């Protein structure tokens, strides 16, 4: 018998990664490092100014407004979406038929281009639109919704409409990872529906929570599309997001502010990911 030796593997696979890595380094990483450098120099002069750009950004009223709104948006949307999509996933999971049909319906908003949906948004939230009509019928005050602080909540609803299916599929994947034998064992021991949920389902879903949160945050930045298409460059204060601010800086060619802002923003996301990871995977 020939002794079967494991062939030494050494460094395999690097060549596969190399083309992509070169592209990512040249076209994303190096330009970003240049932006970090620029955040410490004057826009026109090109000389070292230390943290002056950061001071300008942090004392900028528009930045505070946009950062505050973005944080508020994340703080409201992410928990709301996580709970709603989990509820939908649990309902769907308890249903044995029509599952595929409902999944399809919930996912469809992902496929509807924002630009197509915007027509409906305009008709819904116009001063004399559907929502105003409904309020009129109920003898409640009507408004030009996008021009009031309701604009923020309209954005929240758009985000949830678009992402409910996506998060639901993620939760369903998490649910299917919980072994059915756990439930059977619990039932034999006389556990009720509620107890099963608290002691088996929730802990079983905890590992998915990190990924689902991260992906929800990732998708939340895309809500700017709806905001921009419905309300343009200068929307109501309550939905003035960081993307609006960066657009306006870009138009004014405020490179120094953009550089410092980008570094702060990237740092915040970096910390968020680390924090979530430590919290749930640690």
């Amino acid at each position, binding site marked *: 018998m020939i002794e079967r030796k494991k*062939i030494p*593997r*050494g*460094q*395999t*696979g*690097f*060549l*596969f*990664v190399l*083309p*992509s*890595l070169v*592209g*990512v380094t040249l*076209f*994303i990483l190096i*330009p970003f490092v*240049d*932006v970090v450098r620029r955040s410490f120099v004057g826009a026109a002069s090109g000389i070292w100014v230390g943290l002056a750009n950061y001071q300008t950004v942090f004392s900028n009223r528009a930045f505070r407004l946009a950062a505050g709104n973005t944080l508020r948006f994340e703080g409201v949307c992410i928990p709301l979406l996580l709970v709603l999509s989990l509820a939908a996933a649990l309902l769907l999971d308890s249903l044995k038929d029509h599952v595929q049909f*409902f*999944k399809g319906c*919930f*996912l*469809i*908003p*992902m496929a*509807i*281009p924002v*630009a*197509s949906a915007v*027509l409906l948004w305009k*008709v819904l939230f*116009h001063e*004399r*639109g*559907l929502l*105003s*009509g409904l309020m*009129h019928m109920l003898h409640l005050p009507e408004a030009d919704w996008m021009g009031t602080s309701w604009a923020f909540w309209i954005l929240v609803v758009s985000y949830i409409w678009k992402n*409910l*299916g*996506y998060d639901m*599929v*993620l939760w369903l*994947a998490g649910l299917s990872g919980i072994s059915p034998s756990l439930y059977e064992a619990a039932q034999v021991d006389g556990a009720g529906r509620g107890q099963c949920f608290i002691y088996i389902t929730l802990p079983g879903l905890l590992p*998915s929570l990190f*990924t689902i949160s991260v*992906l929800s945050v*990732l998708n939340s930045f895309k809500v*700017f*599309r709806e905001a921009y298409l419905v309300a343009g460059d200068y929307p109501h204060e309550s939905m003035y997001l960081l*993307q609006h601010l*960066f657009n306006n800086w*870009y138009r004014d060619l405020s490179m120094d502010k953009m*550089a410092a802002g*980008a570094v702060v*923003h*990237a740092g915040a*996301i970096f910390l968020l990911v680390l924090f979530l990871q430590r919290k749930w995977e640690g």
Partner: protein
Amino acid sequence: MIWKKMVMFPLALLAFAAVYPICFLLAGSLMGSGEIKESLGAALGGSAGYVQIPWLPRYPTLVSYVELLLDSPEFFVMFWNSVKLVAGILLGQLAFGVPAAWGFAKGTFPFRKALFTVYILLMMMPFQVLMLSDHLLLDRLHLLDTHMGLILLSVFSTFPVFIMYRFFDGVPDALVEAARLDGASQWQIFFYVGLPLGSPGVISAMVLGFLEYWNLMEPPMTFLKSKELWPLSLYLPAIGLDRAKVAFAASVLALIPAIFVFLAGQDHLEKGIAAAAVKE
């Protein structure tokens, strides 16, 4: 039975809300000028009262589509622009992303984990963070205001690598090892073991990519100054409610490719989404 009905009701309600925009667009696109004025008149200005929900057109007509196709030559240009951008980006992602995902999943080289973490962090960065560096890059390469520039920015997106990685990771190591022992080269293993077994992941990433890039907004808005280069996603919102008929027809035509890809790839789409939730 009661329980089942109680479950069905909220689900059906939510499902209706999710699908309604499509019904709205279809109904609107099949209405004539008179009917559109009747239901949307309040928002268009002119008539009093409020907007009526357009349910079903009473006198369905294709006149809006005819008008769009005959009188709006720019529509075809923008449709074609969208096709070019999406095709360029997806082909590029295939060429660079698929091998990279395989290398990260099955390779053994130093700093593999650390590099992959960098990819995940980059995937998290929204457009505004990279806006300035993208601008400086395109400026230096003289690619501002070109389709090529936009394609370049998205080809190296790390999100598809992440999705495909999850699928390649699921290819059994034993199979890879067996192929190696039989004397297959690294490329042969990739082509004859990795690609066939990981192809659902590749398709998933492409379906997700299509839906994303058909909808591409921020980069073209920022980097394309010439209107004739715009994709559909920028053209549609610019139509305005005063040309509601054309807007409806154009919205439906923009929707069709996305819905087609969605229906054809729903299984893959679901797998692609779910792949992210499964823990390594």
